[in-house]
């Protein structure tokens, strides 16, 4: 019989209780038991959640016992929600609870309940019944992957989540994917997530920026060359397609691919065959191609810069990553993510943004998208002298176009445009997307205010859920 992993999470810290449970469980040779004692009251809850998730992923339990005192009921319910343990059979050992408490626990995914004192006759039948529901290991790995996925793809706005939801589906198949989005939107992060959720996850993920390779070397880099293929080719080179064998090759800025390389790539996508530079031999490779572009490839096809047959081959599954200005509600979420990252990187005790800094983050246009936000937060963490990032630390004005070589008229119109955008966004932010109230505050006619919103393509829905907490 296979060994069953049982994890005992003890928040009660009463040695009598956990000892009596462990004695019962260890009386069966089929159980591999681990006890984890957690000092919840003294710990940072988020660290506890992460540590427990890590523990669950490494131990991969088939069943979890949870022991806790009545005083921790609400904290435990909150913790269960965060842990997503509803996919693992969960038995609670909880003494003196009211029926409402027990029901609340069941609603959070608890499968069974045992009161004290503990008896083997109460415990074993429950374990067998719950284990009969089948193997949970695959489900647990899935929980872990979902956790990682949410850590990589940060955002809650619908326009973003619409694309994120496609990832598990497209990861399962092997079709070519074309990721479209402005510079800095996170196209590579999407591509990598698809790779790690796919059957190819344990094989190479090779990211290549086609725009960074000189035109005359792209073919060589992608398909490799034979020794003596050209002057200076003193040894053969396998190329990126071969390097990515069985894995995924991510071709960023695919629009930069010259015509000759486009032909070769098309042939590869059709037959999985290619010929290294200077070789007479045809090679085969099993590689998934994920391409990305920050330009409208359809336009490039129309202009004759990009082969239409290659475009259709690559664009089997399109993913459109929205620019950050279309998901303003995610700015603060992302900013906090980068804040924790850079606080660790630079070993600084920076924990939050001031209200003014948040307002600035939300009123800015983010032409450089998530990457620009990341750099802005990085710089702010470096410059900050306090534990709270101030508006001045962000110094976003540095990103504005320099005045050099711009006519007075052009500059004036840019500044007016920027002023209008910032002004409207700030008002919508304050009035949570209510146009009538924002127009009244601006002492403008509602219709004229609405026209300004349309002119600057501001989505009022982005402001509906944002609470400033001023």
């Amino acid at each position, binding site marked *: 019989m296979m060994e069953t992993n049982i994890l005992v999470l003890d928040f009660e810290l009463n040695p009598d209780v956990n000892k009596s449970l462990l004695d019962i469980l260890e009386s069966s040779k089929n159980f591999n038991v681990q006890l984890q004692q957690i000092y919840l009251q003294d710990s940072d809850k988020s660290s506890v959640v*992460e540590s427990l998730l890590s523990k669950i992923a490494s131990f991969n339990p088939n069943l979890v016992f949870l022991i806790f005192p009545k005083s921790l009921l609400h904290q435990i319910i909150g913790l269960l929600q965060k842990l997503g343990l509803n996919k693992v059979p969960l038995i609670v050992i909880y003494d003196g609870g009211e029926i409402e408490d027990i029901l609340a626990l069941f609603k959070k995914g608890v499968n069974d309940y045992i009161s004290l004192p503990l008896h083997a006759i109460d415990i074993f039948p429950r374990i067998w019944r719950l284990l009969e529901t089948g193997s949970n290991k695959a489900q647990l790995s899935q929980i872990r992957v979902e956790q990682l996925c949410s850590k990589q793809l940060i955002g809650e706005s619908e326009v973003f989540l619409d694309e994120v939801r496609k990832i598990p589906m497209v990861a399962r198949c092997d079709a070519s994917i074309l990721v479209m989005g402005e510079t800095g939107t996170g196209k590579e*992060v999407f591509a990598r997530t698809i790779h790690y959720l796919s059957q190819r996850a*344990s094989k190479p993920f090779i990211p290549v920026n086609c725009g960074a390779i000189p035109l005359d070397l792209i073919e060589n880099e992608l398909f490799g060359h034979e020794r003596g293929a050209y002057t200076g080719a003193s040894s053969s080179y396998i190329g990126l397609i071969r390097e990515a064998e069985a894995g995924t090759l991510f071709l960023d800025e695919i629009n930069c691919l010259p015509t000759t390389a486009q032909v070769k790539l098309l042939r590869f996508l059709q037959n999985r065959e290619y010929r290294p530079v200077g070789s007479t031999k045809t090679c085969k490779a099993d590689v998934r191609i994920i391409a990305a572009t920050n330009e409208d490839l359809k336009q490039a096809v129309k202009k004759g810069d990009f082969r239409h047959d290659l475009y259709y081959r690559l664009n089997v599954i399109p993913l459109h990553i929205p620019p950050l200005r279309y998901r303003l509600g995610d700015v603060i979420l992302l900013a906090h993510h980068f804040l924790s990252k850079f606080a660790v990187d630079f070993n600084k005790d920076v924990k939050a943004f001031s209200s003014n800094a948040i307002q600035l983050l939300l009123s800015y246009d983010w032409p450089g998208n998530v990457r620009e936000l990341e750099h802005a937060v990085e710089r702010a963490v470096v410059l900050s002298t306090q534990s709270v990032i101030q508006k001045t630390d962000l110094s976003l004005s540095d990103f504005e176009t320099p005045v050099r070589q711009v006519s007075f008229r052009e500059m004036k119109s840019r500044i007016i445009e920027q002023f209008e955008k910032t002004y409207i966004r700030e008002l919508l932010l304050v009035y949570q997307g209510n146009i009538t109230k924002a127009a009244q505050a601006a002492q403008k006619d509602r219709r004229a205010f609405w026209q300004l919103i349309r002119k600057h393509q501001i989505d009022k829905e982005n402001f509906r859920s944002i609470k400033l907490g001023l």
Partner: protein
Amino acid sequence: MFRGSISCVEETNSEIIALKILDYLNQHPDAQDSTEGITAWWLRQVDINYQSSRINEVLKTLTAKDVLQEQRQMGSLTYKLNPDRRDEISSLLEIIKF
């Protein structure tokens, strides 16, 4: 039986990062990725944030010690396991795992 308690201490020790990378490669010997991918997916940053500079330092050290191979193409720098060291790493990880 294992008995432990949750520790919230940051595991930013270079040796721990190196072991995590080697453990990943022991389980997925054909894996290859750039620093970003290694940080996000091999080190499973859902647990904790590691210092980027520390991760880079570990990758460079493991490459210098010939444990990892650096694949430097134009516009791409990726790391993979040196296949000649696979058995050695496997044995090492077996010894240190309790």
